[in-house]
C-alpha cells in the first residue's frame, strides 16, 4: 500500500504541500498517547491520532513515521504544518472517527503489528 491509497480509502484531505503519493506504507498505529506510539510503532508507519500539538510531530520524527492522519476533522496549526514540511512528514486529515479510520485501513489489509508482549 502507498500514501495515495490511504488518501483514497479515508477520503482524506491532503494538508501538506509536498507529498510523495507513492511512498510505501506498511503498518498503522492509532493512538492519542504518544508514549504508546514510541513503544510500539514499526517501520514505514502511518500514525492515526486525534491529538493536535507539536509533540505529535516530534514523536513522528523520532519514529520515522511516514504520514500522520488527523482523525475526526482535527486540523493542525500553521506552525505544525510548517514543522511537518521541514521534517518531511506528510499530514492528512479525515472526517472519520478513530474507530472507523482504523477499521477502514484494517479491512484494506493494513495491520498494527503483533500483540504487545510477543
Amino acid at each position, binding site marked *: 500500500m502507498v500514501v495515495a491509497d490511504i488518501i483514497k480509502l479515508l477520503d482524506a484531505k491532503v494538508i501538506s504541500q509536498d507529498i510523495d503519493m507513492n511512498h510505501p506504507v506498511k503498518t498503522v498505529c492509532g493512538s492519542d*498517547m504518544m508514549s504508546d506510539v514510541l513503544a510500539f510503532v514499526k517501520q514505514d508507519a502511518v500514525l492515526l491520532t486525534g491529538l493536535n500539538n507539536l509533540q505529535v510531530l516530534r514523536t513522528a520524527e*523520532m519514529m520515522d513515521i511516514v504520514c500522520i492522519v488527523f482523525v475526526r476533522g482535527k486540523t493542525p496549526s500553521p506552525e505544525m504544518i510548517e514543522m511537518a514540511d521541514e521534517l518531511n512528514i506528510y499530514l492528512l486529515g479525515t472526517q472519520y472517527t478513530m474507530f472507523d479510520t482504523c477499521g477502514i485501513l484494517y479491512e484494506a489489509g493494513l495491520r498494527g503489528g503483533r500483540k504487545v508482549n510477543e
Partner: protein
Amino acid sequence: MNSIHYHYIVDGEDFARAGEASSSLKSKLKQLGLSPDVIRRCSIAIYEGEINMVIHANGGDIDVDIFPEKIVMVLKDTGPGIPDIDLAMQAGWSTAKEDIHDLGFGAGMGLPNMKKSSDEMNIETEIGVGTTVTMVINVTS
C-alpha cells in the same frame, strides 16, 4: 578515550519546545552514519527522558558522549526525585496529572520504554534534590 560530546539544556517552562534536544541529537547521529536501529533506540530513549524532564522536573541538562563502541546519555534534573523507582518502572504507573494526559503523555510508559531501548540504564535519585538517568546504547551489540 576520545568521544564526541554534546550538551543540551532542556527548558522546563515550554512543553511545545520539549523534544528539541532529541531532534538535534537525532540529526547528529544520522550525520555520523550510525545504524538505523541505534539511531531509533537513542531517539526513543532521549525523547522519553526529555519529556519526563519537562513534565516532572522543570527541565534540566542532557549530556551525550558518542564513543566508537557505545553512546552514553546522561539526563540530569533538579526536580522532586522519584520516591519509589520500582513502582516508577512499572508499565502504566504514572504520577502525571490529567493535563499531561491531554498533551499525549503520562501513560506510565516513559521509564519502561527508556529501559527497553537502552542496553544499560541507571537511575540515581534523591527526594527534593533531583534525578540523574544514565543510559548506554551499544553501537556494536
